[in-house]
């Protein structure tokens, strides 16, 4: 009997994991919600109910506005990163991933620390306090979180263009503007569009920013689903709304998956970064936009750290840190801060491990069977599309009883974190793999290596940077994941992001600020460890 190929075996394994821990639980949740409520009437009711309509409208407005602004700012900055070679480029580019390491909750605190009434900037400059509340505040948080995504994806798009084509246009007398149109506008805009779509989905499904900066009038669908399930005790209504959410955001998710596939260099092509042409005024504009993005992100990070040491109300220096380590805070959280840090690192490390295994297997399948790429890409994106709250609720209702209740809920936390980070980890691997010539792997296969062995021996070592980034993504998203974890967690397994939320909700702001700063510093240390290991070869 002929053995099934390793691609098929791994494809089946990946589909089984995602199916068992995302599709089946979510499908069961939707079926259960729609079944007893009467199917279409329940859907019609959810569509026409004013509260649901408002949350959908909020999601679309917040998502749309954030996406447009993120692309407007991120595109020129991404072009500066993707096209030009300058000292420290790779390190700064890697540093742009830092916002991914943080939960949106820290971003919210950062925006308040920057633009709030007693913020570092908002204190002396009242005009900027506009950005500390309501829709402007939410959009500001979304931009801090998502502009780096647009920058990185636009840069990747620029690198997927053909240097030869661009140089050919120049050699035919075409101006730089013409070379842009012919050779690199398209790939760079594909990258920006990918970033814009992700921004739209992330912003439309945001959780902490609308709750903490605006209140119920700005609730997104995600918040409404959470409230219906956890606050109002109406899980069926929550399930119906979650189903509508998936239907509504399926189109942008599919568009992202399809566009992302085009964000790859043709095999053997590499767009060379060149020194910036400082003689051209446009270069200064691009550089200034990039500097503004980096400066803003840095300011946000510094504001969080400064505020954790210098309390807003003028209390003693370091009060927040003392409170964070106090027995009162531990009693409030139900766990010491050291325990929360330990849980955070433990879950993130396991999530990164599971994520990188699944991403490596998925990248292997898509590199050997390109036709599966769109379908597999969409499948892996489904947990993100379900939204963290829906995924967590589905996991909790389907798997918790099977795992013996709350004692083993940590397994579900790890799986939710790894599934939410998986599409981004995969992308970090797929793009560099797509640019590799196949000759090495084919040579190994002619020497007797299996397809999988050839992949591991000849291709993975050449995309070390992609693997590092994939691990970074998986670990980062696990470290900062708040929404799904918050839904699943018990006090014993409380993580640092959940602690930040609990302390903020209890208005223990100095301790919350210190917890956010601790999470930030922790992320910086992990980030530095991962990046430094790969910087030498890049610079």
């Amino acid at each position, binding site marked *: 009997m002929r053995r099934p190929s390793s691609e098929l075996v791994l494809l089946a394994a990946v589909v089984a994991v995602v199916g068992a821990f995302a599709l089946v639980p979510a499908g069961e949740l939707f079926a259960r919600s729609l079944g007893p409520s009467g199917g279409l009437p329940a859907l019609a009711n959810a569509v026409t109910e004013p509260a649901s309509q408002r949350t959908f409208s909020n999601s679309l407005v917040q998502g749309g506005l954030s996406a447009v602004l993120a692309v407007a700012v991120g595109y020129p900055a991404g072009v500066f990163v993707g096209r030009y070679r300058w000292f420290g480029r790779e390190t700064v580019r890697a540093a742009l991933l830092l916002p991914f390491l943080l939960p949106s909750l820290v971003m919210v605190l950062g925006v308040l620390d920057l633009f709030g009434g007693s913020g570092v900037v908002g204190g002396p400059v009242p005009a900027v306090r506009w950005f500390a509340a309501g829709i402007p505040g939410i959009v500001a948080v979304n931009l801090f979180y998502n502009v780096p995504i647009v920058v990185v994806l636009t840069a990747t798009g620029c690198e997927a263009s*053909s240097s*030869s*084509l661009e*140089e*050919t*246009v*120049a*050699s*035919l*007398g*075409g*101006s*730089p503007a*013409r*070379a842009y149109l*012919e050779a690199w506008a398209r790939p760079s805009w594909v990258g920006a569009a990918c970033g814009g779509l992700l921004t739209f989905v992330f912003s439309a499904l945001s959780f902490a920013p609308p709750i903490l900066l605006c209140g119920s009038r700005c609730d997104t669908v995600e918040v409404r689903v959470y409230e219906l399930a956890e606050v109002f005790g109406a899980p069926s209504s929550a399930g119906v709304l979650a189903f509508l959410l998936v239907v509504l955001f399926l189109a942008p998710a599919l568009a992202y998956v399809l566009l992302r596939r085009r964000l790859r260099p043709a095999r053997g092509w590499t767009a060379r970064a060149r020194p910036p042409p400082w003689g051209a005024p446009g270069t200064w504009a691009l550089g200034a936009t990039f500097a503004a993005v980096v400066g803003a992100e840095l300011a946000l990070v510094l504001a969080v750290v400064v505020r954790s040491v210098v309390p807003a109300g003028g209390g003693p220096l370091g009060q927040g840190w003392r409170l964070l380590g106090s027995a009162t805070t531990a009693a409030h959280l139900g766990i010491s801060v050291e325990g929360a840090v330990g849980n955070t690192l433990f879950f993130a490390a396991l999530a990164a491990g599971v994520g990188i295994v699944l991403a490596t297997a998925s990248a292997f399948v898509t590199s050997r069977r390109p036709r599966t790429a769109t379908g597999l890409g969409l499948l892996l994106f489904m947990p993100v599309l379900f939204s963290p709250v829906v995924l967590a609720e589905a996991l909790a209702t389907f798997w918790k009883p099977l795992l013996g209740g709350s004692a083993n809920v940590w397994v579900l936390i790890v799986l939710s974190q790894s599934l939410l980070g998986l599409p981004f980890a995969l992308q970090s691997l797929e793009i560099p793999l797509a640019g590799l010539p196949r000759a090495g792997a084919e040579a190994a296969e002619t020497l007797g290596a299996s397809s999988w062995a050839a992949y591991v021996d000849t291709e993975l070592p050449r995309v070390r940077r992609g693997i590092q980034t994939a691990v970074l993504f998986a670990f980062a998203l696990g470290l900062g994941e708040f929404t799904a974890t918050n839904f699943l967690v018990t006090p014993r397994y409380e993580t640092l992001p959940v602690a930040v939320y609990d302390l903020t909700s209890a208005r223990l702001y100095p301790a919350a600020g210190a917890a956010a700063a601790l999470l930030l510093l922790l992320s910086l240390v992990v980030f530095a460890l991962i990046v430094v290991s790969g910087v030498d070869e890049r610079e």
Partner: protein
Amino acid sequence: MSASSPLLELDHVSASWGRLEVVRSVSFRVAEGELLTLLGPNGSGKTTLLRVIAGFERPTAGSVRLGGRDLAGIPPYRRSIGLLFQEPALFPHRTVLENIAYAPLLQRRRSEEVRSIVSELSGLLSLERLLDRRPDRLSGGEQQRVALARSLAARPKLILLDEPFASVDVEVRAGLHAEFRTALRQFGTAAIHVTHDREEGLFLGDRLALIFDGRLHAEGTPQEVFSRPTSERIASFLGYNVLAGPEGPVAVLPEEITCGPPSAPARTYTVRASGPVGRRYLSVLEGPGGGRVEVRSDAPLEPGASVGVSWSREVRLPR
């Protein structure tokens, strides 16, 4: 510009990749309508030199002049220098006709003139049947012919050919050489062609320059350069065997070596391999010091056998 002044003049041009100097003080001239071949092994700095001339890299020293004008600070798109790569880099979303008409339209030429240019070039390079096709439906050779037509349609003063035949099938390569040469002649366009392929270099150029380690080592007509190798390294690269003569090293072509019974120990070699190449046989011999020699002969040699070698003609090399 006087009739005798060169079209292109490189004066002690150097260029670097980071700290590594890859082109070292190179000087040469190219006359109007002349085809210069730069021949050298991979990594010898040929492509970097072309990119400096095209304006995609800045020289670290020296000057490049075209038609008497210093090109320093002039961007590539204002240099009137065409460039062809190993990959044709055709516009994938445009037909062959649109690719060829690209530069004339960019130059805002009248439509009749554009039609005339496309017609002339497509006839010259046998592209008439392919005008409405997109690049992905063309063979490698056809794509390179379109790339040349597209470059010539811009009426550049000079065309740079960066190994454009390297990825073309062997059976169409010779025909393509002839077509390129004819088209460049007919348009009177000067060209610099870089290659690491010895036969291609010797065949195509009006003049030949050898480049090793970023330096120009020999320059002249192909016949001159080939018949008078000036060092052991150049001789080996041009296909000569380097042998020990009574007054120092000599360069001997494989066809000019005769094998017979073993004679003096210094000229006794062991046959390592022998096989047919067309109607003749190519054999590889190993000498007493481990040096290898290629021999072309009418009959095969017995592997493992000891033979004495002699030669009819040699070029003396400097010690």
